[in-house]
């Protein structure tokens, strides 16, 4: 019984996903791209790096990367603390 209800809910959800995927804007033609055009034009003169993605990750969005590094550190700390009581 539970599986039937779950199955109906899943089918409805999946069909909504499919419909919205077909009705998305066409692939390969982004409509709003002012920010990215600014990055592509000015990243070389402002940061000096050739790789625009790296200059976004470490310069324009450096605060984001700081949080991400903290998440990685916390996950490693969690794994080590989880196996702490295990003897070799």
């Amino acid at each position, binding site marked *: 019984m539970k599986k039937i209800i779950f199955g109906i809910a899943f089918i409805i959800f999946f069909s909504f996903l499919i419909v919205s995927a077909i009705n998305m804007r066409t692939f390969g033609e982004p409509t709003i791209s002012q920010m990215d055009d600014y990055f592509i034009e000015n990243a070389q003169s402002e940061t000096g*790096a050739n*790789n625009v993605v790296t200059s976004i990750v470490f310069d324009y969005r450096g605060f984001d990367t700081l949080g991400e590094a903290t998440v990685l*550190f916390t996950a490693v700390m969690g*794994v080590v603390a989880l196996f702490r009581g295990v003897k070799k």
Partner: protein
Amino acid sequence: MKEMSRIVKTVTNFVYGFIIIFGFYIIAHGHLTPGGGFQGGAVVGSAFALLLVSYGSLNSREFLKKDILSLFEGFGLILFIVLGFSGLGITFFYNFLANSGSWFGDTAIIGVNPGNMNTGGVIPLMNIAVGLEVLSAFGVIVLTMASGAEFTKKKENS
């Protein structure tokens, strides 16, 4: 994890150094070519995983020390935070070395160019910091989970 056959060990001996050098190349050239700290750190971490799988978790404890790796992880994170704070005269994470003429301070040629190692300001230093953190994080995760798997298997057999 048990150690694997002699063929796997020989191939690992041959390939291990090349994978690590390739990973550090990706880290160091992060501001010029595709790649960066995260990707290069992941490549070096996969070399650690290869060593662990082929030699077994007991034998590879001589090559990979967990304490040293976790020391490097904390060092990388602290270096990243210090680099972020040192631009605080203007804003947080300001690129104070770019176009300054000192370390990594050459002005880049606008447009398509063959690439100059000495550009990018604070970005190559941050690449090195994050790469150090990511590679030691992967090493610590793989080593810890391998020793945990050892214990789980032992309890199952007894």
